[in-house]
């Protein structure tokens, strides 16, 4: 009983941090202690491991998703070329 309550609390704690753990974004890093605690929990909790796998799959699907417009190479080249003319543009 005690053990399953502890497990539930750890699941809740991990669920609140799992995205930050997977993103590893420099704006919101987890402490080394938090990382160790999440990794230990993932090693023994099938439910949270499944949640992490779904988050990873979702991120991968979104990063491959073809539904956003991609800049065409000519636009990028024109803007790169514009960088060389900034002093003249600035003087106008």
């Amino acid at each position, binding site marked *: 009983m005690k053990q399953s309550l502890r497990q539930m609390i750890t699941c809740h704690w991990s669920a609140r941090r799992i995205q930050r753990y997977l993103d590893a974004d420099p704006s919101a890093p987890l402490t080394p202690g938090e990382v160790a605690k999440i990794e230990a929990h993932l090693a023994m909790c099938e439910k949270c491991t499944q949640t992490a796998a779904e988050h990873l799959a979702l991120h*991968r699907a979104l990063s491959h998703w073809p539904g956003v417009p991609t800049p065409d190479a000519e636009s990028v080249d024109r803007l790169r070329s514009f960088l060389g003319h900034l002093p003249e543009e600035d003087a106008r």
Partner: protein
Amino acid sequence: MTEGQNDVDSARTLAFREQVEPEIEVMLRVAMGLTRNRPDAEDLVQESLLRAYRALDRFDGRHPRAWLLTIVRHTHLNMQRRKRPDPVGDWDLVRDSRPAFGASSQPSAEDAHLDGELSEQLSDALSELDPRFRAAVVLVDVHDLSYAEAAAVMGVPVGTVMSRLSRGRDRLRRRLGPQTLTPGRFA
């Protein structure tokens, strides 16, 4: 103009180019989300580059992408001040866009799954998201911006991005379900 002034301009332009050139593509992608068309996006980035160049002396050299994206957002608001600003990642632009150029012509089985059925379901699920959550998800997961960079584009604190991102992802994950996201796992 004196020769000395030319040297100063050249050094300044070179320093600016080094900071900014790697960020042009992401600026353009974000600008396309804001303006909803390619010519306006290019104009917006061009105007933003000029503003950034003029503000270079006030830039501390840290996080150039976040700095530039903040300028893109401010420039866009300025250019649109007589119109109602569009939310970032407008759905019409996303839905009507063509597939990314340069995509592999022979995708792997996993890529085929991502590009096929899952991609369609993902489009539907994204279209049902609150626009604020969708913007956070598109900027971070699709455009690969950091939390701070997405915050710069959205004009909100990093904590707000994290909250919207978390809620958006959770709704997408639940909407798609484990059978779609991780087929075969834990069967």
